[in-house]
């Protein structure tokens, strides 16, 4: 037996032959993701149960495998599921059960492989809605999106960074099974449901919050097999407004004024290019469409729920227009190329294929991090300066500002678009900009690729403790080896 076929045999012993593959076509998507390149996926394996996941991890410990868990379909945008060196891809897409939907308690229990595309219509049938990030990939796993702390577009529902994920089932790198939040027990899920519980409390169990350690860990601490997910009521009335303006500061002022009293549902700020990229599927139109937009646009939604929906919309719109007036901006119901109805549809669904950011040039790279809204203009000028240095036109940078934590901070995302043949130049710009932004105080809370190095250099104390945790939860480095600050030489 070759080494490879021995590997496949061993993996097959856990999940069955039909769920193991070394098909290069499939594996090739794991060689590159976002700016991360050079992965060497050896095989892909599709477990069908928690039990199999546990066995797999035990096997990996015995054989010193590097397991890279992945739940979503390609393209790979962040590189977290691109192995550092050799690795076995664990594709969770077979575990795609919507285990439970609970209208009364507004909660879903879903396995790792459930995508937005699948979940949205099921949830909709109950009169509820899924809390969405902005235009996720069509094949994006809901659980993975939550695990990666993708920001959702309704900041008022973003109370805490774990939202909208609640309880989880984890398999640590030790192979041990664990459940977090109120799912932890006593009792099975079924016993808990019988007792009226719905796995809604996201904290604990007891005096530790392992879910927080697993979230944002890019699969380095534990595999997550299922989670409960908070859902919200689908509005009876829903309307989208645009607030275009040439001065970002005014829109920032308007946003602060409005988010404080929790006005609006969806709330995001886009620059002209990012907006244009969203509203047309035709890449050719984007430059023109972008020119027609105001440099900056706030997009917000206003909703009415079960009770007195019209009145709710009415008071919100009155209060919002008052704030708009004070900030010196004007809400409108359409922008060039996009009516509010159209925007409502765009925001409510995953991105059509191909992924919307490929529209302008075919390829792109994102740079995103967390900061506060008042600091956004400073970062924009840093980004623009770096772009200029590279001869990249300022007005072709996509800027997406997503208030999170009810407006206490923002996810700030820059996108540079380039054709696949310019990838080399694109990467250079990306790296230079990442460094410049880091220098300027960007907080790369989701440190993919080179951001790890930038982010962890700033916080040696965090790194020291993270390594202790890693040692505890994944002592043999079987989970996504070498990622974050867990490069093998440094950990041991």
């Amino acid at each position, binding site marked *: 037996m070759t080494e490879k076929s021995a590997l496949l045999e061993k993996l097959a012993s856990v999940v069955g032959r039909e769920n193991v593959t070394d098909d290069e076509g499939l594996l090739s998507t794991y060689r590159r993701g976002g700016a991360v390149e050079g992965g060497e996926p050896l095989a892909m394996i599709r477990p069908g149960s928690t039990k199999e996941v546990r066995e797999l991890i035990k096997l990996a410990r015995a054989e010193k495998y590097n397991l890279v868990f992945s739940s979503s379909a390609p393209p790979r945008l962040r590189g977290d599921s691109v192995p550092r060196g050799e690795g076995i891809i664990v594709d969770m897409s077979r575990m795609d059960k919507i285990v439970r939907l609970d209208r009364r308690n507004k909660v879903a229990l879903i396995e790792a492989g459930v995508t937005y595309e699948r979940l949205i219509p099921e949830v909709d049938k109950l009169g509820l809605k899924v809390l969405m990030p902005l235009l996720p990939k069509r094949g994006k796993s809901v659980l993975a999106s939550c695990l990666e702390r993708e920001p959702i577009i309704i900041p008022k529902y973003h109370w805490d*960074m774990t939202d909208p994920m609640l309880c989880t089932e984890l398999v640590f790198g030790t192979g041990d099974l664990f459940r977090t939040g109120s799912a932890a027990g006593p009792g099975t899920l079924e016993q808990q449901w019988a007792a009226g519980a719905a796995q809604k409390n996201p904290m604990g169990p007891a005096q530790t919050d392992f879910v927080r350690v697993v979230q944002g860990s890019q699969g380095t601490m534990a595999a997550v097999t299922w989670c409960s997910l908070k859902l919200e009521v689908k509005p009876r009335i829903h309307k989208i407004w645009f607030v275009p303006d040439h001065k970002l500061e005014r829109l920032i002022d308007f946003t602060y004024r409005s988010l404080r009293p929790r006005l609006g549902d969806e709330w995001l700020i886009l620059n002209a290019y990012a907006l244009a990229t969203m509203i047309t599927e035709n890449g050719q139109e984007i430059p023109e469409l972008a020119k027609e937009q105001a440099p900056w646009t706030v997009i917000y939604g206003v909703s009415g729920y079960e009770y007195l929906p019209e009145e709710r919309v009415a008071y919100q719109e009155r209060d919002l227009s008052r704030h708009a007036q004070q900030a010196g901006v004007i809400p409108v119901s359409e922008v060039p190329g996009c009516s509010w109805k159209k925007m409502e549809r765009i925001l409510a669904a995953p991105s059509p294929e191909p992924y919307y950011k490929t529209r302008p040039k075919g390829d792109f790279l994102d740079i995103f991090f967390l900061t506060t809204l008042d600091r956004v203009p400073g970062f924009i000028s840093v980004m623009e300066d770096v772009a200029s240095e590279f001869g990249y036109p300022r007005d072709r940078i996509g800027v997406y500002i997503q208030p999170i934590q009810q407006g206490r901070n923002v996810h700030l995302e820059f996108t540079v678009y380039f054709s696949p043949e310019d990838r080399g130049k694109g990467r250079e710009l990306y790296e230079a900009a990442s460094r410049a932004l880091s220098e300027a105080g960007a907080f790369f809370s989701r440190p993919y690729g080179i951001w790890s190095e930038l982010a962890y250099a700033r916080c040696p104390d965090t790194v020291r403790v993270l390594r202790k*945790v890693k040692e505890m939860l994944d002592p043999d480095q079987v989970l996504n080896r070498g990622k974050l600050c867990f490069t093998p030489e440094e950990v041991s």
Partner: protein
Amino acid sequence: MTTATLDTWKEISEAAYQDLENVVGTENVSREPAVLDGYAWQPTINDDPAKWVKRPVAVVLPSSTEEVQEVVRICNRHGLKFKAFSTGWGVYSGPTYDNVVQIDLRRMNRILDIDERNMYALVEPYVCGAQLQAEAMKRGLNCHIIGAGPACSPLASATSGWGVGWDGIYMSYGHRNLLGAEWVLPDGELLRVGSSDSGLGWFSPDGPGPSLRGLMRGSTGALSGLGIFTKCALKLYPWPGPSRVRIRGLLLDAKAEIPENVRFHLCFFPDRNRLADAVYRIGEAEIGYLATRTAVAAFIYTFAPHLLRRIAGTSNLRDVLSKGTKWGFVIMLVGASEEEIDYQDAVLRRILADHEGLSIEAMGVPAIGSMVFMNFFRVTAIPMVFRMGGLFSTALDRNDTWDTQLDWAEIGESIKRKWIERGGILDDLADNPFMALYESNMWAHCEEIFQYDARDPKHLASLEPMFIEFSIAAIEKCMEPLSATDARLRKLVSPLMGHYNEWQKKLSGALDANRAADTGMYCDEIDFDFSKVEPELKAKLDRLTEKFRWTEEGPPS
């Protein structure tokens, strides 16, 4: 808990004491027994009849993070343990070992920053809820004040305790309000959780990558068992009312000028189901600034024990009170605009109508209105639970859906009723839950409060058996007893919940090589004294633990 006696108490070594003096100065360290006893008297939520907890060997008053680190290092060097203490409310604040240095953080009392636009405050341990609220209000903001009242440290509850409060419907829960923390680890090293560790400010609590916030606490904090928190950033929430509410009077005689954009409804429903349903609708409508279910009878008993003792001797009146007002719900609405408050009010009225509820708009009743406003807004009513007999305790379960918490209230009530009839606790008409909703009823909380007089030996004798009985009831209901900060209970429930304590012990081992933290409330395990438990209860517990114990495969199906 084992009865805390002085038998094993030893004096601190001269060398260790000298080291402490060198760090904080002679005036900020004490080993005077009477002073130390000031830290050993912790009767609240203490089921040990002695009421005293272990006497620390010394108490220090550091004034800075550096001093805290130094003190912790001294404990590491001298084989001592440390236990931090901020406003020091309840048994959790006290030592559980013999060789503990109590670190009283009282001198670290500043509000370091209030970021008005990004709505957070950076505070030190000895800022109390009322102080933070008063300062936040000046900026149109407010802070979450926990159920234990405005004397408590928001830092302590957010980093180390629970974080439950009536304002949870609008202002969430202690842990979820953290935006970062400065943490002196048990070995004396410093860690800042979140963006502050990168020197980028206190706005984000998580990352880069995994969130170390997950280590510092879960549903409950480690109660100093895993280090000491010396600063934290806490979310503030909008307060569209006046910068100061003018009040005359101190509590029951208070006359407050109630802001116009505040409405306060005391609602009653005919039965449990309609109350339950109505609250789900309230949550979905996303209205409300403060909310709780309260059995009015018990509430009055707490507020006006004299009156009730006199008039409630008759069974009729008791009946009227306890049945007629049983399914009560209190909600305070606050609107940022006139339109908003009108809208919220209209929605509430519609929900009430749909569920056959009726409301007394309490603000319309001058005496009640001005009293309840601050009682709820600043949680100033809470220490009233000490009024009936001097002490109270509470039966906590793990929070989940509103339905489960209403169940818990009923379970708690039935257990309490039995103990009231036996004369084991004071009669507050049994149904006296402290309930809260979180994040527009994303999840809910209930604890059953009972009141007793520690000077009554019969009451003292009831505490431990009641504690066990409540715990068993929680397990039976598939809920973690949240009082599992108790080492006895932890030993019982950890195997039913994924052996969580094995992980806590590992974490403790990883961060605290010298075992310097007092882990009695965090990861220690000790055996229950079941001799005080009725045999049938013990048998029930055995059945339950058998049923729920995790196997190698996970939870038994």
